[in-house]
């Protein structure tokens, strides 16, 4: 048997080693953040945020089309996923042991793991192909589907945490079931549901793959949801793989805005759910 001192020393060395390894794994994130801010911050100015792209060669121009596009896509996704997600979440929390619930949960788990590109294909088949052209609507639907499992899961989890007594107290006051759910149970779980919605928004705001065959992109400002629309991640992708240095700069600027937006949502979600 090795001496006790040796074993203690070994244990200590390993702990230092592991801690260093863990710290090392934060390096990529910090590098990405550093790179994006370094390259992006100088690009961002008022014009960048409020004007449309200009052809290569012309100075100036911005990414307004993408900002508006992402906003519209997120709104469409929210409109679809929030009610759908909350109602399904309520169903799972309330009638959790039915057969329908079992199957729904299975679908939620499948949706949670489905690659975003597959969602893109599906929405292409369901909406783009029948319509004959790309559209903001199809992009919003794709993002909505991506968001759905997050909203459902967080709603279900938070509602399960709400004591049964709260619900019964309301029913015992002669309040109908639907009002009990809408006015007592859902408000009691409001912060949790909100967290889920924010987390879902964070998940979809940077999604690109499902937009490739749905929203497609659009160099002009568009408010018509039946027409193709641009989005921040689409713009970053298109500019990043282009051969023009000035487009790369614009992509850095857009990346910077998108990353700050998504990370802020992420941090807010974590802070809310910690309380």
């Amino acid at each position, binding site marked *: 048997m090795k001496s006790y001192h040796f*074993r*203690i020393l070994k*244990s200590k060395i390993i702990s230092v080693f*592991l801690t260093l390894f863990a*710290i*090392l*794994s*934060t390096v990529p*994130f*910090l*590098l*990405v953040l550093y790179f*994006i801010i370094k390259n992006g911050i100088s690009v961002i100015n008022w014009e960048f945020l409020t004007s449309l792209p200009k052809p290569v060669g012309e100075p100036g121009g911005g990414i307004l089309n993408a900002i508006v596009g992402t906003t519209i896509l997120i709104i469409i996704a929210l409109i679809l996923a929030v009610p*759908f997600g909350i*109602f*399904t979440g*309520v*169903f799972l929390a*309330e*009638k959790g042991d039915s057969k*329908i*619930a079992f*199957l*729904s949960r299975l*679908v939620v*788990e*499948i*949706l949670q*793991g*489905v*690659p975003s*590109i*597959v969602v893109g*294909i*599906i929405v292409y088949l*369901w909406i783009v192909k029948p319509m004959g052209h790309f559209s903001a609507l199809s992009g919003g639907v794709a993002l909505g589907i991506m968001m*759905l499992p997050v909203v*459902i899961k967080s709603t279900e989890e938070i509602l399960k945490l709400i004591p049964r007594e709260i619900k019964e107290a309301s029913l015992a006051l002669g309040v*109908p*079931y*639907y009002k009990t759910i809408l006015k007592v149970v859902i408000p009691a779980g409001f912060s949790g549901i909100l967290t889920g919605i924010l987390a879902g928004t964070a998940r979809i*705001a*940077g*999604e*690109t*793959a499902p937009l*490739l*065959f749905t929203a497609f992109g659009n160099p002009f400002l568009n408010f018509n949801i039946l027409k193709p629309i641009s989005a921040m*991640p689409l713009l*970053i*992708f298109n500019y*990043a*793989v282009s051969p023009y240095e000035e487009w790369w700069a614009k992509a*850095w600027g857009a*990346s910077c805005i*998108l*990353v700050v937006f*998504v*990370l802020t*949502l992420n941090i807010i979600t974590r802070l809310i759910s910690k309380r």
Partner: protein
Amino acid sequence: MASRFTRKLALNKDKIFNLVLSFFAVLLIFLGVGFFLSLFNASYLAFKKFGIGFFAGKNWDPVQEEFGALPFIYGTILTSFIALGISFPFSIAISIVLGEYFQKGFFAEILRYLTELIAGVPSVVLGFWGLFFLVPLVREIEIALNVPPYGVGILTASIILAFMILPYSASIGKDAMRLVPNELKEAAYALGATRWEVIKKVMIPYARSGIIAGIILSLGRALGETMAVTMVIGNYHGIPESIFSPGNTIASVIANEFTEATGEVYLSSLMYLGLALFIITTVVNLIGRFILKKLQH
């Protein structure tokens, strides 16, 4: 006392409400089934033409309308498993550090945020960064090793994937480590074990299935990840000869070629790829979640 009318009305509203709830749940099930059926339907043409042999075909030639998925399957599996290999030691280290050494406190919070937040960075941004930081770096290495200096390729894609999946396996691993009962650890300490011995002989064996679930779930992520991979893998349709050579994954082929696909067979073949990806990731995910669920009970 309310009139008979309002008595009935309230009851009806409850029924309607329950119907609405069930409607959404059933709609969700239809959504899931619809996913599968639509993909299956769209890929039927390619399936009829190439059958299961599709996945063994080495050539992907849109001009000749000859489609074989083997290079992409190979690329997908290669990148995913290399990524798992790269991230594994880090993920274990984070699991142990956050699951045992630093469970609370400022350092633990910061470390947790910094390791988990990379999952929040949009994959297109990571790909962009990879293109301008990682690709030149890998190119230097390739020059030093005297292999063709593409920069882009399997290795670059794997490194990016490793960054992306690390938070998943690390956070599930950490949770699994924290689930180890204190009595068990104390019993081992009481026998004179050192901290490392407790971790190695008690905690890791106890948390093993959780760690494995984390790895499986992150594999599911890696298999389906699209944008970052598409941007740095090099889009080569052949079977990659080494980890330095460019390649393609199922997801990256679809992303690259879908909007340009002309011809029904071409499109259907891409759908067929999508169906395969869907089934593989779903199976991998469900296995991972099944293990996790068993762990929680």
